[in-house]
Each structure stands twice: as C-alpha cells, then as structure tokens.
C-alpha cells in the first residue's frame, strides 16, 4: 500500500518553508496515517530536500496532519534557482511513500 491509496495532499509555501498537509480519505485511516507519517519518515522520503527541521501538527477532527519543512526551499520562491521554486510538486512526491498497515 502507498500513501496515495488512503490520503490526499496539498502543498503550500511561505518564505523558505514548505508546508504539506495530508488528509485521510476515511477517518478510520487517520490513526494509521498518524503512526506512519512522522517528521522522520517524511524527511527520509524527501531525502533530496535540504531541510533544517520538520514539524508535524495533528488535526484529528479533520483526519489531517500538516508538515512544516523549514529550510526546504533554498531561500524561498523569490531567490531559489530551482525549477519548482515554490516546491508545489513536493506533496505529490509523498504519495508513493510505502505504508505497512500491519
């Protein structure tokens, strides 16, 4: 199983921070999501990002997690030379994170 099977994502940016929110399609999958998606597993999956820190906010009433990746955007959209300076594609790249439901 991969993340895409149980969740959808949205990505935004603020300065040098990428913010990725992950939403369980079904509320019953939220505990699984909260167990497998940790700041460590997210940072590991996006191993090519130069993050300083990853922080997770839990929103159980929305069956959602929000990850704040500080330092991910090489100075932010106004300075970065990256093709996707906003990091808009990053959340989608999380969707093939392999999930072990056991």
């Amino acid at each position: 199983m991969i993340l895409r099977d149980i969740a959808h994502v949205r990505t935004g940016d603020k300065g040098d921070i990428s913010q990725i929110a992950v939403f369980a399609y079904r509320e019953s999958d939220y505990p699984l999501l909260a167990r497998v998606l940790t700041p460590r597993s997210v940072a590991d999956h996006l191993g090519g990002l130069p993050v300083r820190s990853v922080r997770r906010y839990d929103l159980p009433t929305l069956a959602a997690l929000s990850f704040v990746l500080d330092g991910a955007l090489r100075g932010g959209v106004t300075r970065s030379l990256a093709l996707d300076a906003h990091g808009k594609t990053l959340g989608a790249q999380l969707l093939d994170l392999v999930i072990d439901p056991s």
Partner: protein
Amino acid sequence: MTGRTVRIGAGAGFSGDRIEPALELVEHGALDYLSFECLAERTIALAQMARRSDPEAGFDPLLADRMRAVLPAARARGVRIVTNMGAANPIGAAKLVTRIARELGLAGLKTAAVTGDDVLDIVRAGDFPLIDRVGTSRDLGDTILSANAYLGAGGIVEALAGGADVVITGRVGDPALFLGPLIHEFGWRMDDWTRLGRGTLVGHLLECAGQITGGYFADPGFKDVPDLVRLGFPFADVGENGAAVLGKVPGSGGRLSIATCKEQLLYEILDPAAYLQADVTADFGAVAFADLGEDRVAVSGGDGYSRPATLKVSVGYEDGFSGEGQISYAGPGAVARGRLALEIVRGRLALTGVPVEDLQLDLIGLDSVDRTGRPAGGEPREIRVRVAGRTSSRAAAERIGAEVEALYTNGPFGGGGVTTSVREVLAVASMLIDRDCVAPAVRYEVA
C-alpha cells in the same frame, strides 16, 4: 443559519487569475461583496519599480480589464468591491477606476484608496532584525526597493463606512479583504477575537478563489473534478456570529466539498492554532465542515485570540540577476548526452571566467523537481537540460544561456529546442514593525 447573512465572493486568487468567473459571481451569485486578492509577496516590489519609471503606474496590470468586466453589473446589483490591486499605488489605481467608471457611464461611483502600508521610510531610517534569515534590514543596504506592512481590515472598514463602492488597498493581510466587509456589516468590535477569528477563517478559505472549488485539487481517478474549464469561484454566506456556509454559482464548473475545504483550510498555514494576522491571532485548530449537498459546505469552530503587537513587513530588494538556458535530448542515450551537456556548460562557465555565485544543473524529466532521489523505472524517451545561475551582472547572466545555445554546434549530438532567459531578481525578506508606527489613511475619488 438563522438571522441576517452577508454574501461575499472571491473574484481572484492571484494577479493573473481568470476574469470571467468573477463576472459570473456578480451576475448570478446574488453577492453583497466581491473581493479580489491579487498581490503576491514580491508583486509590490515589481510595482514599486514600475512606479519609479512612471508615477501613474505601480498597480495591478489587470486592474482596468477586471473593472471594465465587472463594474457595470456590480453597480446595477449593488455589489461592493474590495481589492488589493492598488499594489504600490492605490491612489493611482482609484483614479483609474474612476476614469473607467466615467467611460462606462457610472456617474457617482465612489472609489476609496487605502494607504498607509508603505513603510519604506521607516525601514530605511532604522535597523530591524530579519525574521526569515540571519541579519538585519540594514545589511540589505541600498538594494531595498520597497517595504510594506501587512495592514488589517481597519482602512477597509473606514472606506465602506464612508460609502465606497470600490475599495482599493495596497498591502493588507489577504483575509482582511473579506474580514473588512464583515466588520462593517455586523459592527463587530475590534477586540471580539472570536468573531474576528471566524471572519479571518472565512477570508482564508476564500482568498485563493478557485482553490476551494476544485482548482489545485484534481488527480484523475482519485480526485476527479468536473469542468475545470469553467471553474466557478466561491462565495460565503456569513452570519452575525461568524458561522458561514460556502457555495458557488449553480451550473459553474468545479466542485466544493469537505475535501476541497479541508485542503484550503490548511493551505500555507504554519501553526493552525495561531494564524497571525494584523487584527487577530486566528485559531483554526477546531474547525469543522458539514456537507450540505449541491456544492454547499458549512464551516464552524473557528476562533481567535488577541492580535500580535507587531505587524509583518515584506521588504523587496534587488538581488542580482539569474540566467538560464535549456536544451532537449531524445532517443537512446538521451540521459547520458544530457549529463555530458551539463558538464560542458559547467566547464565552459569556469574556463571563460563567468562569475556565477550559484549554479543549478537539472535534467528535466529525471531530477529537476523530484526530491525523493529514487531511481526512475527505465530510461526516459526524452530529457531536457536546464542550467540556471545567479550572477551580479546582466552580462554574466546572459553568458549562461549563451553557453547552452552553443551546445547546438559544440555539444553532444542531437540537441534541440534551446530557450534562454535572463531576469532581474527581486527578492523578499520579512521583518516585524511596531503596529503603532502604521496607520491607514483613506482617500476618495468620485466618478
């Protein structure tokens, strides 16, 4: 919802946004207000540069097109307009809107310009720590082009109380474009943190326009959205206590659902329990949505507490140049030829002594946006080489594209489709300023 409600629509989520969904809202949305959010972080620095070369310029380039499209219908239906399209010159923008209103025969149309966000003189005279990196504003020296504080809704409320049909601001917090009309209509106190928090929630949900009605959402087979070609923009019916129901014009494209609302709720929010705005610290931590069917979603649970003592200021500054070149390779060995091309350009820039501070070498189709570092399955049929670099001069930036173009006759075989570009980099840094340094002012123009 019981009692009187006010209906506010979102006419744009960024400066280049589609125009006809705004007209659709005015004509068929039964709106009371229409707000357009059009001012990205560095747009105001660009506008400031435009104003330097032409004192009449410095506002949103689509202002005239948008106003010509919506003003007649808005006037006929009593829809009042609020927008930050004033950018670096709200007064100039208000004068233009007034000229357009006269052309359209809309005599008496009253337009307000809200100013006071420009704090360039204060920033130049002082020295303020930057909040998004090490250093202070003085380190940026004379490269600073603009400094604008994120104002709250106060100026908008004053302008609406003054009878403005159109309110044009420079930098205000995006949700304030929606909060302002709610404060005006319901007479909310400026220390009623719960209501201000709920109004900010409504503003945050609406400010990106189509991003809550199915834009930036579709993933075929997983999250399907009908008719994105005719995506409808959202509105909210807001009650006196700040509770709201979101909707869109029946028959418009897109989809408004709990899932689209959740995505927009958390979009670009760092701490959901502390969304810092000039008027309130909004708390989205306990927000809940209920699907009422037919693209109607109720939102509740927003809250707020006291506003921050400081205002955020965006400082726009000149940050040199960037140069870029791209070229494509295809067929067997495309990736190897692309890698060879990158090494040639890197070597040429070094050999010819081009002063490049930072060089980005990408193979589009392989590693340009991917950050997982996982190997692709099989070699792609085509890749595109991209070289981008930062320089202090335009001439050096031009050399980057020139070296990519020279690959046609000097590089690996079979390169095609070269494009090159140079741009002047306007960067943005953030700092905080004491809120007492800043006061909005309102000026009117009447057609």
